[in-house]
């Protein structure tokens, strides 16, 4: 039975997968070069062949949006592409901002299927 489990696990690990990845898991906001703003740098890696666009957002503990600025809220990230981007928030929102999330954007498909929207949320260190 255990052997069978390992065989199934091995087969599943060997199958092609599509992954969405964002680091760091626990970003720290630091003072930006502009007074009154804080900044942190995030990195993303797109291993989802079915996804080309991602959206980023900053949220409070109840996942209500917190104002932020970045180069592009929705950006294109090619398959197997890496990107690094800065997130700026107001210093007054330091205690309110809790999560930085990235979400995959699904294109309208032509098949009768389900699709997976992946979302990864990093927690800002206080």
């Amino acid at each position, binding site marked *: 039975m255990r052997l069978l489990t390992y065989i*199934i696990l091995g087969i599943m690990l060997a199958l092609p997968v599509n992954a*969405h990845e964002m680091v760091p898991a626990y970003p720290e906001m630091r003072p930006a070069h502009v007074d009154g703003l804080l900044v942190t740098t995030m990195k993303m890696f797109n291993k989802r062949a079915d996804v080309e666009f991602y959206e980023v957002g900053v949220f409070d503990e109840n996942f209500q949006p917190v104002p932020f600025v970045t180069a592009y809220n929705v950006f294109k990230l090619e398959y197997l592409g890496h990107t690094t981007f800065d997130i700026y928030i107001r210093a007054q929102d330091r205690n309110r901002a809790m999560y930085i999330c990235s979400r995959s954007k699904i294109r309208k498909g032509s098949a009768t299927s*389900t*699709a*997976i*929207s*992946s979302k990864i*949320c990093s927690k800002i260190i206080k």
Partner: protein
Amino acid sequence: MFNKTIKSMTILGIVAMASGNIFALNAAEVPITGTVESRCIIQTDNAGTFGNPNAYTLTTTPAEGGDPAVVRFDVTLADAYYAEITPPTAFSSSPSLPDTVSWTGDVQVKTVSDATGMGTYETDKVEFGNTDRYDLTATGSTWFQIDATATMGGNKAFPGGSYTAVAEAVCVAK
């Protein structure tokens, strides 16, 4: 005699320097650097497909021609993340529908990479609304199966065309 010694030492020095250069060339290194950070990776193993067992039902149930979605969470830091998974509750794209659609969905742990550390994920999950939250207390991989069934109101037929419904898989740092 003295000149011969000087000459020998010079040749020896040249040979030694040349050898040094050769060794230096052999020892040339190309550093490949990287950092390991704690992370959560969401992998879509199978996006899923709807079967159409009768005119008014679309389902991912294998026995009825469907294929459930499978998503895998890899975590490299124990007790640092929640997995929150929501089956679809609407079509993101479809033809014009003649009636309202009712949805049922289910999420369950399909396979784990560490049966000891992850064996209680399914029993310990918390359901709120349509979303199931799993506390990822161990490092490794967990596969979740997402089932969904859409039933057209009044047993009316689904019009011909393409249908897509989106399930959401979220990894939240604790």
